[in-house]
């Protein structure tokens, strides 16, 4: 494996008495698509949120693209600019149009003049198939469209890594494919992606590697198709059986 772009050592996090992450070790290579599966409450989302410090770990070491993730504001700003995140509930800014949502980061963080930022935003919204919705407000868009705007918004910062936190879970089933389609395209372009998902088949198709988490630990990891075909750990087996029926 080439030098990892993400290096995680013994990462621990508790919410009160509840231990959510119990010592995670993980390396992610540049361009790798890592699919994270596991029952809810297993710590998948918390793991992602520790990577851009939306959650502050209690212990352990995280390094992204050679920069240690610690209390330093400067490092944090650099890392947040390199790590894009897409949320389950879209979290678009309701008072801004699609175009303004996407242009906000480049404008405020990258200090691009408004026209340049909006040009970037327009290109990205076209890329996710929303050329006609540039000036629409989020409330007038379907869930699938909102999530595609959210992906464009994260991409606008030109990140090296994209975190996807159950991005299709809040969507109507018939809208899931359009979001997955955008993610598939991103994967083909070589983006490093960490994907927490219940869309196991999509994960197997796109992922280079799959990890199964349960109760704050990584119980099993391997090639996705292999893992789906013959899961080693009994918990993985039970989880997949329940999910795939």
């Amino acid at each position, binding site marked *: 494996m080439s030098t990892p772009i993400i290096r995680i050592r013994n990462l621990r996090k508790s919410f009160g008495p509840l231990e959510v992450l119990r010592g995670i070790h993980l390396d992610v290579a540049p361009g790798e698509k890592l699919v994270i599966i596991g029952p809810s409450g297993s710590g998948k989302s918390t793991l992602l949120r520790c990577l851009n410090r*939306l959650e502050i770990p209690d212990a352990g070491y995280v390094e992204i693209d050679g920069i240690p993730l610690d209390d330093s504001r400067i490092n944090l700003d650099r890392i947040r600019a390199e790590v894009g995140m897409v949320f389950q509930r879209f979290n678009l800014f309701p008072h801004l149009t699609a175009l303004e949502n996407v242009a906000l980061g480049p404008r405020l963080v990258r200090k691009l003049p408004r026209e340049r930022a909006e040009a970037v935003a327009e290109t990205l919204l076209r890329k996710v198939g929303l050329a006609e919705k540039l000036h629409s407000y989020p409330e007038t868009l379907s869930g699938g469209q909102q999530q595609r705007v959210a992906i464009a918004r994260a991409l606008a910062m030109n990140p090296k890594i994209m975190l996807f936190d159950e991005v299709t879970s809040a969507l109507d089933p018939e809208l899931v494919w359009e979001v997955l389609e955008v993610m598939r395209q991103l994967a083909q372009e070589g983006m490093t992606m960490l994907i927490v998902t219940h869309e196991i088949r999509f994960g197997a198709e796109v992922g280079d590697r799959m990890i199964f988490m349960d109760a704050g630990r990584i119980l099993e990891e391997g090639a996705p198709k292999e893992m789906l075909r013959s899961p080693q750990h009994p918990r993985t087996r039970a989880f997949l059986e329940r999910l795939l029926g």
Partner: protein
Amino acid sequence: MLDRLIYLLGGLQLTLALLVCSLAVGIVWGLAIATMRLSPWRPLRLFAFLYVELIRGVPLLVLLLFLFFGLQGVVGRGVQVSAFWSAVAAFGLCYGAFIGEVFRAGIESVDPGQTEAARALGLSAWQTMRHVVLPQAVRNVLPALVNESVSLLKDTSLAAVIALPEVTQRGRLEVARTYETFEVWAMVAAIYLVLTLGLSSLARRLERGQKTVVHTDHSHPQPA
């Protein structure tokens, strides 16, 4: 009848000046109070909490008398304390506490996911507040803010006790001159009613365009 109306309406300018100045002080001070209430720094939270408690525990009329006559007693006989600015200070300090609670509720009504999304993009805490949270909070609190303005408008009548010749004080002078208590006070009441109805209909129009609306009452605040 018409003469009397014109005389009473002559106080309107002062009533509205009190409203506008006190509201301006109240909004600025209210923003400061809300920021302190939500500060990560405990002494600031505690100060703002105690301040709001204090204001809620003291009648506005007493605060007004204290600021005007009380301060007069401290600074000495020679110095004239302005009645107008005493009133603006009393109303502004009082409504700063109320409006602060309105703002706080408005900021808290914004989904935490909004802050997370902004922070994940790399926006600073201040940029997040300025470009993401406040625009949504202000939209949510606009109707409540108009309601506070209605209350404030009515409360400006208290300034009559320090002899500011606003609408109510003019009513008192008119009664003293004519002894026609019923007619005069009915007319004064009608003037306030017209003003407040105007403001409330504005509030309703604002509220119609809202999804999330913050309602606040003047009961005691949550502890800091």
